[in-house]
């Protein structure tokens, strides 16, 4: 799994390439929490290159979202691939986390 961070004015974009599973979930969670500690409010998880997310991965997204919420911010996702979208739909994630179709949508009007 590879994580790239892109700081924009509106939000911090975290692009994940690979899989978020038991092996990498902790690393992912630590990275997002680190960004929140550094002061990021709005975090957009760009999942264009995310191939798979396990229940451990879902949980780490939830933890990050909860932390952001407690600081007055929010975590959202965008550009979900087929398999990840199926998991999100099945688990009802879409009612817990805002999902956008694309990065531009997520960033909103600049």
């Amino acid at each position, binding site marked *: 799994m590879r994580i790239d961070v892109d700081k924009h004015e509106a939000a911090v974009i975290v692009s994940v390439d690979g899989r978020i*599973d038991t092996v990498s979930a902790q690393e992912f969670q630590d990275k997002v929490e680190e960004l929140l500690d550094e002061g990021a409010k709005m975090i957009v998880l760009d999942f264009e290159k995310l191939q798979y997310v*396990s*229940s451990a991965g879902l*949980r780490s997204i939830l*933890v990050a979202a909860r932390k952001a919420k407690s600081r007055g911010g929010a975590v959202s996702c965008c550009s979900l691939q087929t*398999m990840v979208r199926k998991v999100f739909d099945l688990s*009802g*994630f879409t*009612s*817990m986390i805002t999902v956008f179709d694309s990065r531009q949508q997520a960033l909103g009007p600049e």
Partner: protein
Amino acid sequence: MTLLVLLGATAVFAFILAYGNYIIHEIIRSDAETGAKYRAESVASKMDAELRSVAEIAETVAYALQYGDWNEETMNALMFRVVGNNEQLYGSAVAFEEHAFRPELRAYAPYFYRSGSGVTYEQLASSSYNYFVKDWYFIPREMKSPVWSAPYFDEGGGNALMTTFSLPFFDLRSPGETRKIKGIVTVDLTLDGLTQKVEAVRVKKTGYAFLVSDQGQFLAHPQKDWIMRESIFSLAEEWNRPRLREIGRQMLRERMGFLDIGDVLGGKASFLAFARLPSTGWSLGLVFPEDELFAEVNSLNRTIMLQALVGVGLLLGVSFLVARSIARPLRRMAQATRRVAEGDLEIDVTEPGRQDEVGQLGQAFTRMAQDLKNYIRELTETTAAKQRIESELSIAARIQKSMLPSRFPAFPERDEFDIHAVMRPAKEVGGDLYDFFLLDDNRLCMVVGDVSGKGVPAALFMAVTKYLIEATSGSEELPDEVLSRVNGQLARNNESCMFVTIFLGILNLTTGELVYASGGHNPPLLLSPEGEADFLATPGGPIVGVMDDAVFGTDKLALKPGSVLLAYSDGVTEAFSADGEAFSEERLHRVAQPLWKKPVEEITDLVMNEIDSFCDGAPQADDITILALRFDHATRR
């Protein structure tokens, strides 16, 4: 090791000394040779100069006689003056060719010589003395060139050693080519002066000079009885030393030379420097005793030797001490290493007071042994702890196993249905759950669930969930209400955001109607008795335990007798092969479709086998749960 160091140092020293010695020896030898040769030449030159000056006197007289007319008186006067004025001359004569002085006189040879009272006249031409046949006349006459005679003792001249220089003079009136000789001018030279000079030459301490004639006869030598009696060659013969003969030849052949003659001339081992006297062909030799010649280098040698010995001695001493100071601790460490290898870690090889490499090594070594001791202790403790945990885990696994219904067949007394389930955790304990129990006489409740994550935390969550469901399903009518209640309980105090997906179904055994709800769980597969397979359309609902206000739905389905409900966790569809391919719903559908007529326990086993062969080689990523429920017929009264 010590020995090696010493040998090495000694070898180097010895080589340097030997080479140095050789070089110095060569330099001094070369210098000595050059010096000796020049000395010989210089002495020889001086002597030759004296001989030359005598020859010049004869030349002057000859020159005078060739020009002008001379009579008895004028000649006598000339001769008288010549001898008188020249101290080095013993005598001088002018011998005329036959009838060359005066036609009436066949022979005429006035001779003037030094005697006690002054200069005395003698007429050599007499009846008893035929000078024409004497060497001193005959030879230069025939050769028409000046000749130095071989040295001789002159009885008349007080037995002095003498040599005579004879110089022909010519009749200038005769034509050039066949010049006629008019007579011979002679001058006699005593060699006393010369030989004294030779004997006066100081050569080092016990060296000496000697003079030999052009025949090798000794003219001057410290051994006085050799003079005129022996020659180099006669000695060579007498002593049977061919080398001496060769030396003699060289002395008379070459202009100048320097030879190592050993003791062949008697006395100590020596070197000979010689130079020729060009006029007479005599040879002057200087004998240098070898030890005196090389006295300097020998003493230099001795000094160096002494220094070297002291140096080597010191080096030896220091090397020995250093080597010992290293070798001893090393030996100790080697012994300690052996002990460590045998398991004894109570070693101490510190060298107190030493800060150098050896001291550091000793400290490091001892530290290492102590560290090893600690590591081993920690490892032992950890291993013991691990074993405790493992045994506790296996206890936990057994507890968990006992929590899930595992007695099969589960309801042998009920013929309306058959149910079988299997849960295989990815670790010792899992986060998947299945459960089934009779709510009452007519209703069977079945559950399949999957807690996020795996291992002990998930297992604990799973246990809580299972008991909540069992407790709640008793009081609530509909599956969605059960899920709601369970969700509310779980969502409370859920800091860690753990969640569980649940499929809950209640089958009415009298009607065959199945009511069911799902909280984020994979839709089960329904195998129809016609051989069709379809995934149930679940009523929707999020994962359980996160949002306390989550909404769930209930759906209904009438089961045809012989239908099989195949419920499972995502450990089935998300089982990955070695090259990263997922088992997927499609494959499950394909595999399960033909299994509707098989007994439920076979169905679960066959599906599990398919998963295993698909994942061959890859480790199990998630807990796998498979539950098969077949509805045979409604309750018969």
